[in-house]
């Protein structure tokens, strides 16, 4: 299935290139394909993974992270404005990165993002439109100008989310420490981890 799950725009501090508090300015989700009772946790995890990855992406860098059957595409611009797009494995990565550029161009042209927070961007609806419209990647054919630029940019590929983390960091620890995940989501994470692993006794 070709599907987009989430797009979020995140501000990353420029002074402290490694780590630092990231602020999610705007996020949009399409969780219709998940079970009703899982949606809240899935959404929390998508936000959590998005921020985690942006925190570990350098300025002016593009990355694509594969985790199970999901792909997480990140683009952080030189000025610290970043965007994350989570899609399934079939969604063309090229189109995904094109969309990231488009979203960031749009945000920076329409919004005072340097001072903004999630509250002040409440009325900015552009991302929801992008998420709905580009579920069909053919729609992106019109964005050829961005695609041409993209071909000259290097995209770093990672095969797991663990590969993005810094030395000594573990995803389990990050999940356990996080304040943004509810107890139920953490429980979901544990269960999913157990059932997804091949043999556990």
């Amino acid at each position, binding site marked *: *299935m*070709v*599907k987009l799950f989430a797009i979020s725009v995140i501000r990353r501090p420029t002074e402290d290139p490694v780590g630092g508090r990231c602020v999610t300015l705007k996020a949009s989700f399409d969780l219709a*394909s*998940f*079970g*009703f*009772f*899982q949606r809240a*946790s*899935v959404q929390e*995890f*998508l936000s959590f*993974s998005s921020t985690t990855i942006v925190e570990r992406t350098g300025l002016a860098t593009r990355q694509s992270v594969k*985790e*199970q*059957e*999901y792909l*997480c595409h990140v683009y952080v611009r030189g000025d610290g404005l970043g965007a994350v797009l*989570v899609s399934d494995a*079939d969604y*063309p*990565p*090229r189109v995904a*990165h094109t969309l990231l550029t488009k979203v960031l161009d749009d945000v920076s042209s329409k919004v005072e993002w340097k001072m903004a927070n999630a509250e002040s961007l409440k009325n900015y609806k552009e991302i929801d439109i992008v998420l709905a419209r580009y*579920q*069909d*990647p*053919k729609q992106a054919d019109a964005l050829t100008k961005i695609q041409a630029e*993209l*071909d000259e*940019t*290097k*995209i770093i590929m990672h095969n797991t*989310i663990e590969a993005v983390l810094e030395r000594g960091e573990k995803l389990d620890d990050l999940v356990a420490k996080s304040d943004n995940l509810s*107890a*139920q*989501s953490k*429980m*979901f*994470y*544990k*269960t*999913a*981890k*157990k*059932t*997804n692993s091949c043999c*556990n*006794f």
Partner: protein
Amino acid sequence: MALAKASNRSPRLTEGLNQGDAEERRCSKKKSKICTDFSENSEYADLAEKVFQDVNAAFERDELIDEFDIVPVESKANHSPVLHVASEHKLALEAWCVPYLFTHSYKSFLAVRRKQKCSLSSLISSTNPSKYGSFKASNFSESDRINRGLVLSRTLVLLNPDITMAWNFRRDFVPIVSPAILEAELRLVSLVSTRKPKCPEGFVYRRWLINQAFKNHLLLPETIGEWFPIEVKSIEIPILKYFSNYHAWSYRMWLLQKILYDQGIPLEQKLLVLESEVNCTDAWMNTQVSDYCGHHYRHKLLHLLQLTVPENSSTTHHEKFIARMKKELDQNAKQIELYEGHESLWCHRRAVMKMLLEYLADNGSDECNNSHSVIIKDLVYNEQKFVSLIISDDNVAENSKERTTLNCNHCRKYVAWTNAQFSKFNWQLSTNDFNSSQSCI
């Protein structure tokens, strides 16, 4: 992100009483000890019976429940583990209660089944009825017992749809005599497939239901335009939930063939059904690029389209079919360009191409022969153009190199395969540049 898989691969509660191994493991040690002591401890039977009644109450309150799930939560407050969101028609159980509920319903269900076989008196001596909560063997009439068996089997198939016995009980005791009953049963199967989209037993039961409905004239040929789309819609949920869901797709094929081979259904109706399926999968094909089961269905669908010839219009059918196949190849080419490196797309191309060429060879009567060779020549030209386009992509786009290379490899295999298969049609593709290969044709 890891958690999203939980619904598809949540532990299977197999093998009767040893159910929920993984589920149990998840419980604390203390809890699993309680579980093994279950049969001796009627306190837990009461608890399970209470949960069981809550589930039944939810079904009674809300007939339209369309999603069931088991959610892993830690139980802290003393409240019912049955989560029912009536406004959205969703039902869920907290994971900790599942072992209790399953063991209890399974045992009670066995008792009900056993009674069916033995006489009442021998039964009372063989089981201790007080063990299973409100289930008192002595004051149970025959119909009460069947009703209890039905609600028990409903809970059982929800928790573990692989228990054939529970489905069989429903086969024996649910008379499919009215549209309302049929609808309720179909809804139950759909509900089961929201948590276990790949469960074969559910689809087998669904087939049985449709057969019964045909037999009892509940699904009439005249109203096929009404019930067929509903049935297809309900089958699309498990298809979307589980990637390459073989059981769902083969059920869909079964249903289609049942309609096409039914003598009582007029030909126009069959053509309408076929057409609606082609349109339906058309939209689906746009978003699914690696679901080979779906591609196989599509392939068979096109084959059925070829075989079902309307009366008195064999020439227009012939042209229409060739146009349809060309359109299919066009769509496929666009997808291969956009979604690089998906083998199932290439396999689908092979299948379509083979079907088209064989069709042309079989229907090559003398007067059409000329036009056929033109069509084949045209096909080879287009195919060469397409192949060269894909191959020439090999040395651009640094960022998606891996996928592009994969795509080129699939393309080369495709070229070799077609050249070998279609040699009798004068079919010769080359993997060189388009311009240089022009001279070869």
